[in-house]
């Protein structure tokens, strides 16, 4: 069983990635990443 762990793990995370894309998380990530994060730079 341990032998197939990498395969199961890879499939599981591809599915999770697909879920994230399907649920519309990519534009959310992009919107946050294109604006200056004041918390990150120690302002807000």
């Amino acid at each position, binding site marked *: 069983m*341990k*032998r*197939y*762990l*990498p*395969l199961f*793990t*890879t499939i*599981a*995370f*591809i*599915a*999770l*990635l*697909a*879920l*994230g*894309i399907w*649920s*519309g*998380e*990519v*534009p*959310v*990530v*992009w919107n*946050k*990443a*294109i*604006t*200056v*994060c004041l*918390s*990150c*730079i*120690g*302002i*807000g």
Partner: protein
Amino acid sequence: MERLRRRSQYIFALLANAYWLFPWRSPIYQGPLKKLCFPGLNCHSCPAATTSCPLGALQNLLATLRPSLQMGQLHIGAYVLGSLGLIGSVAGRMPCGWICPFGLLQKWLFLLPVPKLSFWRPLGRGPYLFLIVFVVLLPLLVVDPLGYGSVWFCKYVCPAGTLEAGIPLLCLDQGLRRAAGWLFAYKFILLILLLIWCTLTSRPFCRAICPLGAIYGLFNRVSWLQLRFHPDRCVQCEACLTVCPTDVSFYNGLDDLNSAACIRCLRCLSVCPSNAVSLEFGPVREDIGKEDVEQFYPKANC
């Protein structure tokens, strides 16, 4: 191998920070590449950053989880966790040793000729603490009346944000300089202390703080890429331990070669004079356990 790794670190550091138009155009890159999560720690508010930071993105998604669920959107961080998990399931913690720009910085700082301190091993639990508390629990649970949380790790801990984004943006923008207060001062002091620690100890941020390394580390034992130790070939010269940036002591059975602490820099593989370490890609094989190593080298020798 070491030359290849060095080149990889430089190339990825440049690719992650390839937007050099920021003094003339917008203060940060706003193109489509920012939809991708960079596999290493690289603040997406850095003026030159071309991709998003996975830790920042994950915290943002968790901090806005309640409002998004109320609006019927399932934004649980699946995209970020899926990206990280996919990389981790293939290579384990290899991005820490081959890609991460902050890892490269730590390597440079440790080369400075100052007295060196050994790493206090109990601090090795730190990354899990920062991951669970600062990246997951606090953004999820500490929310304002509208249900919005904050990016706790970025705000109160992350030195990459201060170094790559805070300092350059404050230099470029007078308005931000005026707005900087106690929080920036606190983060700046934290950064200086960490940089000093990096000159004294090998990779202290990776080993004691980094939540991204903690995530990748979980995959070290189940990734396609596996390191394999052959104790029958080992001559106990300790060359692997001498070069290991995270002090993984596998030759005497103290640690597992594929333990979460290993950043897969592969220096042990390069320096071993008897080829006692090999790199394999494929289904996980039953590895040599500690008991097997102790059969070859009794505890008295460890």
